[in-house]
Structures are given as C-alpha cells and as structure tokens.
C-alpha cells in the first residue's frame, strides 16, 4: 500500500549481544515475522507481521528477545486516542467490520478488584486447611423444594439430577474447531483428573472424546452443530447456549477454511462450508419456547441430566434469569462482558453487556426475593482470573465458576487476541497441523491440573481465614465482602457494605 496509515503498535526488540542466531524464533513464528539474513549472519524482525503472541520470546534460549510498545504516537488527544484512530483508518481501508479475539480489554471497572474478603480474628477462629478437613465439593442442579414421603412414611428420593464437582470450577464452552484437537484433549483430560467438567461448546464432540463423557458438558447452540441423540446422552449435562458474554446478541461464524476433516465430521456439515450460528435460536422467542427446548432435551436424555441455560450478562439479566429458572432449567450460566471468544466484532465485544459481578449479584438477589433461588444453580463466567475471583463470586451468590480464558492462558495463550486469524502460534486456536502439534496434551493437561490444584489450595486458605470450612457456607455470604472505592449505588447492587462499615 502506498500509504501506511497504521504503524505497528508493538515491536520485537532483539539484544544483539545475546542473540546467537539459532533461528528458533524464525521457525516458531507462523506469521513470518522473524527472518535470518545469511549474508549478515543476523536475525531481523518485521514488526508489522508480529501479533505479540510471545512465542518467540518464550522459546528464545538466551532471552535475547522482548516485545515492547513501539511508542509511535499521534498528537495526544484524549478524545481521539490512538486505538480509535487506528481502528478508523483500518475501516476506511477495508470497508469491513472490525474483528477481535478474546475478551473485552477496555478500561471498564473490574468490580472483583474493588471487593475485599474478610478474615477471622479472636472471636471466630480461622481454620488451618492443612490440619482440618475443608470441603470444596459442590453439587449443581435444582434442589427439591419439599420433603416427600411414600405411603409407608419413608422419604422419597425426589432429588433432580445433580453434577458433582470436586471444586467450584468448570472449563467454559470452547468448541472443537475454534480450539484445536490438542487443546480439547488437554481440557478433557484435566477435567477428568480434577473431578470437574469441561464444555464442548457448539462444535459437537470428537469421537475420541466420548470416553471423557462423565466430565463433559455437551452444548446445544443456535446452529445445532454436531447434535444427535448419542451426543446428548454422552455428557454429564446439556447446556443450551442462548448468549455469550463476548458478543451478546449475535451468533458465531467459524470460517469454512477451518471446517476440515474431523471438524466437518464432528459438526456434521460439509468440508469447507462456513459454520454460521444464528444470533437467536430460531425456535425460541419466549420463555415458553425455551421451556420446550429444555424439556425436549430432558426427554431426549431420559430426565437423567441437568440442563444448563447459558446467557450473556445484559441489562435486564435478573428478569431473564428469573424466567429461565421457571423454564425448567437446572442451572443458569451467566457470562459477563469480559468473557472471551475466538472472534467477535470489536464493537460488540467492547461495548455490549455488563460486568459479571453486578449481573451475578442482581440475579442472586432476584431469585432469592422470588423464592426460587434453590430451583437453579448459578454458574458465572466472563473473566474469572484467579481463586480470589472465585471466592468473591461464590460469596456474591454463585454456585460455581466457569473459566475459559484462564484455562487457555494455562495452555500457553498470551492474549495476543488474534485467534480469528487461525494461526495461533501456541497450537490452541488453530487447525493448521504444524501449529496444533505445538500443544502436547501430556504437558497441557498437566498445566491445567496444576492450575486447579493451586486454586483449590488457595480457596481453602481463604475460606479457612474466614473461619469457613465448606463452600456451601460461603455461598451468598456477602457479609464476608466489603467494597473499596464503590459508590452507594454500586454497593447496593452488589449487596455489600463499604470497607470500614
């Protein structure tokens, strides 16, 4: 192009004293950013091709590489900042909708970071999790409202189907297709080893992964890809995806170039055809319609599996959740506006939806006020970044947390946010065989297991500090939370006091 409107935002800086020209960076960059100049015996980098994924940085054996802000700046302007200007230039050049990967990176408040946890002192002794038993097991599903007895006065088992998790974490829905085979295998094996669940997303279930069924949530979304009776019955639960935090109100689009081989077979669509998930479910225009699908799926799976309904956190989420709780769903999953994605229009990702903390607090309160909180479990996702976020979410009223981005980070993702390009250098969001093999599930699943093991330790430590020895006693225990720097309205919505009160 004659005029380069957009200057690379980042550049790879190479320390010439440390670079031994081993060319590992060149071999590992699928974007072709690094190049070896044989005549000069040195490496060079084309920053315009760099996506800042840090693959080269992580593999450089001499730490000769780092990636920094290029520092090129327009004349300072708080209204027209560099991001806004660059995006406008790109659109003026392409005429297209801007695409982005992963979650909303914009500077909105992170409420988890403005909430602090309590700890016991003197009157209510803290508990040492290394010395005393500490329960992190949770059960998800509708709880019976009444005690029922048979004609002989014996208790009737009227417990609806439950999911049993060793800790309140599940891997959120990420489809086979958007993720690589090896990424899915890592998630499935880690879920099995840790006694938690992972989620197929809307891509069907690869035939090799049916054996992890007891630790799998099978998803049914608006495109219905890969859905058949055997699929519905192979998982531990069925999730109806109504919305996604990263892009509330719109569907999905997996480009035909990714619909190859096993993915085409698993999704049950022809090779090379685009997999387009419509924005709405075309058979759901009301809570009554949703109820029909919930019961169709229960019928199809013999009423043996809980049905999850997943929605994006949007403005009137509490009323929507109330409707879902009455639709017969066993579990509501709410995905906050920070939630990740393989590809979303940038404007949707950055400007639609609400924070998960506020959505969760609102939903929990609404369901309690209406006396139907026990008829559903609540799972929250949309940027749960640490065990502290999980503890805070549970104290705000969640039963369990979904982690997606966090799990991918454990597998090597560096949040370069170009998943939609399909050339993930870490072998996660790609279908190119040479890149997929970069993620060895033997190592990947172990890193996920490590992450959850570490988080479970930390959850126990934090609970112990509060003098609580079971997740159940923490649930909705908002007295354990205090806000810092929040206004009255925010505190009111979160249902917590300010620090010092």
């Amino acid at each position, binding site marked *: 192009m004659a005029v380069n409107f957009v200057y690379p935002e980042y550049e790879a800086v190479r320390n010439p*004293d*440390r*670079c*031994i020209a*081993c*060319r*590992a960076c060149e*071999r*590992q960059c699928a974007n072709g950013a690094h190049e070896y100049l044989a005549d000069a015996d040195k490496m060079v980098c084309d920053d315009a091709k760099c996506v800042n994924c840090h693959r080269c940085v*992580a*593999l450089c*054996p*001499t730490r*000769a590489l780092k990636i920094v802000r290029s520092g090129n700046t327009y004349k300072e302007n708080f209204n027209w900042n560099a991001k806004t200007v660059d995006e406008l230039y790109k659109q003026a050049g392409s005429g297209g909708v801007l695409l982005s990967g992963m979650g909303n990176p914009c500077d909105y408040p992170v409420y988890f970071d403005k909430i602090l946890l309590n700890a016991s002192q003197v009157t209510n002794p803290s508990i040492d999790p290394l010395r005393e038993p500490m329960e992190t097991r949770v059960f998800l599903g509708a709880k019976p409202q009444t005690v029922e007895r048979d004609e002989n006065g014996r208790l009737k088992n009227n417990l609806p189907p439950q999911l049993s998790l060793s800790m309140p974490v599940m891997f959120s829905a990420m489809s086979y297709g958007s993720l690589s085979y090896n990424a899915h295998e890592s998630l499935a094996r880690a879920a099995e080893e840790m006694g938690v669940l992972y989620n197929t997303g809307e891509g069907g279930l690869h035939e090799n992964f049916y054996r992890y069924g007891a630790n799998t949530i099978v998803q049914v979304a608006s495109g219905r890809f890969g859905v058949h009776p055997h699929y519905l019955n192979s998982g531990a639960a069925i999730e109806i995806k109504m919305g996604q935090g990263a892009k509330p109100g719109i569907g999905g689009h997996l480009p035909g170039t990714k619909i190859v081989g096993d993915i085409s077979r698993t999704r049950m669509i022809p090779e090379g055809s685009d997999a387009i998930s419509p924005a709405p479910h075309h058979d759901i225009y009301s809570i009554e319609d949703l109820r029909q699908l919930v019961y169709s799926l229960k019928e199809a799976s013999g009423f043996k599996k809980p049905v999850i309904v997943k929605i994006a956190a949007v403005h009137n989420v509490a009323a929507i959740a109330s409707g879902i709780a009455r639709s017969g769903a066993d579990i509501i999953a709410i995905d906050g506006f920070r939630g990740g994605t393989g590809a979303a229009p940038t404007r949707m990702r950055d400007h639609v939806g609400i924070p998960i903390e506020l959505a969760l607090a609102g939903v929990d309160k609404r369901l309690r006020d209406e006396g139907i909180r026990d008829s559903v479990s609540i799972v929250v996702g949309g940027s749960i970044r640490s065990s502290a976020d999980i503890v805070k979410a549970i104290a705000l009223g969640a039963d369990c947390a979904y982690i997606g981005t966090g799990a991918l980070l454990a597998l090597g993702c560096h949040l370069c946010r170009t998943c939609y390009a399909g050339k993930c250098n870490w072998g996660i969001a790609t279908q190119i*065989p*040479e890149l997929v*093999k*970069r993620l*060895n599930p*033997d*190592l990947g699943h172990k890193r996920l297991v490590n992450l959850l093991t570490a988080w479970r330790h930390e959850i126990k430590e934090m609970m112990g500090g509060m003098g609580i020895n079971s997740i159940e006693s923490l649930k909705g225990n908002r007295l354990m939370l205090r806000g810092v720097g929040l206004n009255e309205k925010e505190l009111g919505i979160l249902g917590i006091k300010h620090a010092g009160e």
Partner: protein
Amino acid sequence: MKRVYVNEKWCLGCRLCEYYCAFAGTNETDMARALKGCKINPKINIEEKDGVSFAVSCRHCLEPLCVKGCITGAMTVDGGVITINGERCVSCYTCILSCPYGAVSPSDGGAVQKCELCVKTAGGVPVCVKGCPNGAIVFEERG
C-alpha cells in the same frame, strides 16, 4: 536403563535441542556467551523432511557396532552408556561409518563425538530432554 527417546509426533523442529546440547559441551554458564558467533556442532541433530521432524542421537545399542569397530578401545560401554575416551581416539572414523543411525560425528577437538547422555557435562540429566519445549524428547526406562 534410561535412554533418550524421541517422539516425532511432538517434535516441532525448533532445533533448540541442538543448541542446548552444544551449550552443555562448553562448560560455560551463559548460553549467549558460550554460543555467540559459533557454528554449533551438536551431538543431537534434527532430521526434517516434508513437515516431519525428529531428533537423532545415540541409541546406546545393546550390541553397539561402534564399540565393536573401534580399533583403539576408545569406545566403551560404561553401565550401558556408550562413552568415548578422546585421549585414545585416533580419528579413524570407523565408528562413524559403522553407526547405522548416523549418531557419531567428528568433533571440533579432533576426536569423534556422540551423545553420552550428559553424564560428563550435565550430571546425567540430558539437556536436550530438559530443553525440549514440547516433550518430544524423553529420558525414560523402556522394556
């Protein structure tokens, strides 16, 4: 006995094993200082063709042809590890010719060189295994 095994399914052809191997032989503490400006001559080598790659190093055969062919007794089997005594080697290269895997090569110091499982350099923990980013090279006991 524990040996180095390679799994081409996970080999990325990044050749870091070659560089870690070359570094281990230098007795330096800093890789950049050790290998800056050098043309490396490692004891493990990546073979690559048509998208398939894997590392090749000494298999430590139970009946090693290199040891059998060595005319000076420089090559010996020491607890299963085939080692070279550089003092005795006269560089006749019989071992290089007889190794069916191409795992023996001329060394920069005059004699021949081959993988000795880092027994002499890194305390018996092969650096290629430790440095492989994808678990494609393993050090384990197999039947």
